[in-house]
């Protein structure tokens, strides 16, 4: 763009000088704001009395957690199983609803503009509420337990999955669909033959990815009574049973590592 003619030939620069200065100025303002914000936090919002002993406290807590209470594992198998079930059944439920919602929300497959608006509403509303909040509400309605947790995970995941799915549907190669349409195929057949094969890998990837997220999510749902290992975590913390807490954290870590490995393997296999 800015090519400046000089006596010894044209010179090329990425930006014009005023633009470049403006960009530098922008950076300076950003840094100044950051520094000022930190100053404010330090002056008003920090409880300085805690600071000198913070390191000592952390070390203390660690020491109280070691060694983990291995025998407590006997009581953890059931909650871990619940947690896995909440995540898995919740994810399956979410995908079952998310797929039709995604087809209704994608511009190229929606039957009508109003249907699309409604589908988008479902996506936004389920997505905007955190699963912990869904769980709070559902525990209130259905009582504490695994069912509330599963529904909370499922509801929260509909929007997240649908959004990724409908974006994938909108990005397909239209030629392939046109070719199917030209054979005299019905709209449903066009979806089954022209669109579904193209989005299948994304669908599988999204499902597994969501399951992976949901495993992590479902470990904390117990905090509000919606079943799973979070319940044990919260009661152990309340009774200051730190060796149990560390045992639970280890179990959660193991579960998450396993779920991530599985989801990475599956996604790799599909793509």
């Amino acid at each position, binding site marked *: 763009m800015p090519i400046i003619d000089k006596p010894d030939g044209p010179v090329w620069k990425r930006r014009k000088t005023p633009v470049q200065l403006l960009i530098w100025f922008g950076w300076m303002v950003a840094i100044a704001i950051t520094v000022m914000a930190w100053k404010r936090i330090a002056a008003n919002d920090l409880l300085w009395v805690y600071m000198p002993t913070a390191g000592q406290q952390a070390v203390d807590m660690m020491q109280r957690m070691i060694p983990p209470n291995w025998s407590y594992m006997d009581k953890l198998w059931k909650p871990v199983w619940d947690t896995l079930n909440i995540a898995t059944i919740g994810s399956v439920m979410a995908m079952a609803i998310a797929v039709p919602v995604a087809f209704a929300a994608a511009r190229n497959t929606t039957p009508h503009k109003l249907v699309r608006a409604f589908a988008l509403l479902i996506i936004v509303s389920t997505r905007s509420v955190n699963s912990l909040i869904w769980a709070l509400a559902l525990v209130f309605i259905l009582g504490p337990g695994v069912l509330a947790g599963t529904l909370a995970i499922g509801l929260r995941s509909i929007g997240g999955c649908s959004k990724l799915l409908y974006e994938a549907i909108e990005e397909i190669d239209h030629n392939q669909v046109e*070719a199917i349409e030209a054979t*005299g195929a019905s709209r449903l057949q066009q979806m089954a033959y022209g669109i579904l094969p193209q989005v299948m890998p994304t669908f599988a990837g999204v499902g597994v990815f969501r399951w992976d997220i949901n495993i992590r999510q479902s470990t904390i749902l117990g905090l509000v009574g919606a079943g799973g290992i979070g319940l044990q975590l919260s009661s152990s913390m309340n009774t200051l049973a730190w060796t149990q807490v560390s045992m639970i954290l280890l179990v959660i870590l193991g579960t998450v590592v396993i779920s991530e490995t599985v989801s990475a393997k599956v996604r790799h296999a599909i793509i």
Partner: protein
Amino acid sequence: MLRLENVFKRYKTGDLALKDVTLEIPDGQVIALIGPSGAGKSTLIRCVNRLVNPTSGKIFLGDTELTSLSSGALRKARRRMGMIFQEYALVERLTVMENVLSGRLGYVGFWASWFRKFPKKDVQEAFRLLDRVGLLHMADKRADELSGGQRQRVGICRALIQNPELLLVDEPTASLDPKTSRQIMRLINELCKERGLAAIINIHDVLLAQMYSQRVVGLKAGELVFDGPPEGLVPEVLTDIYGEEDWEATIEEVDEDDEELLVEEAEVVA
């Protein structure tokens, strides 16, 4: 017989893609539709099977007026017209067999097609067609494993299994090398003869158009500017269609190139 009467197409953007096109194609005739990019060739054949709806004018396939059909009747009418595409437009993640059988979707119900329960007769026909184009051994491969020429052969099978009266062929060779282009064009031509099919073939390549068609129609900025035998493509006509250029070289090459290649290809086939 296909008949277009005063067909106009104006896109939402305001571009007039077809201007008063009137054209008649008798049964069994293969015509080449030539013209520069953007002349409306693709629009014209898409108006026939109504992937694009003409703005005004009438199109008849036999006694059926295609332009006034409801969506159900249109689907039935589309079964009578096979389409072959520039970029093959195969469903990449389906197998060759599934791609060929997708040509029967207009004939089978949704659940039958969903569970891949095509009538035995259709499956046999698919095998026969794949054998005809030399791809029988590829039936179970996924479409994205094939080369360009092979994909286009699958595309041809998909169109033919519809058992159409008319082939709409949109730039079948644009993504292929010169030799494969000729093989594909010859294959389309042979198949049309075998089955007495009429065909409209959109094509950039003037040489190929002359070699493999009985009649050439020239389109320029949406208007018919030439309609005649392949020999009628003299430099003046080409200048009229495409604009000023040294056309002598293009046309002279035809005969020598053609014969040479035909001999060469005959050897390959044998």
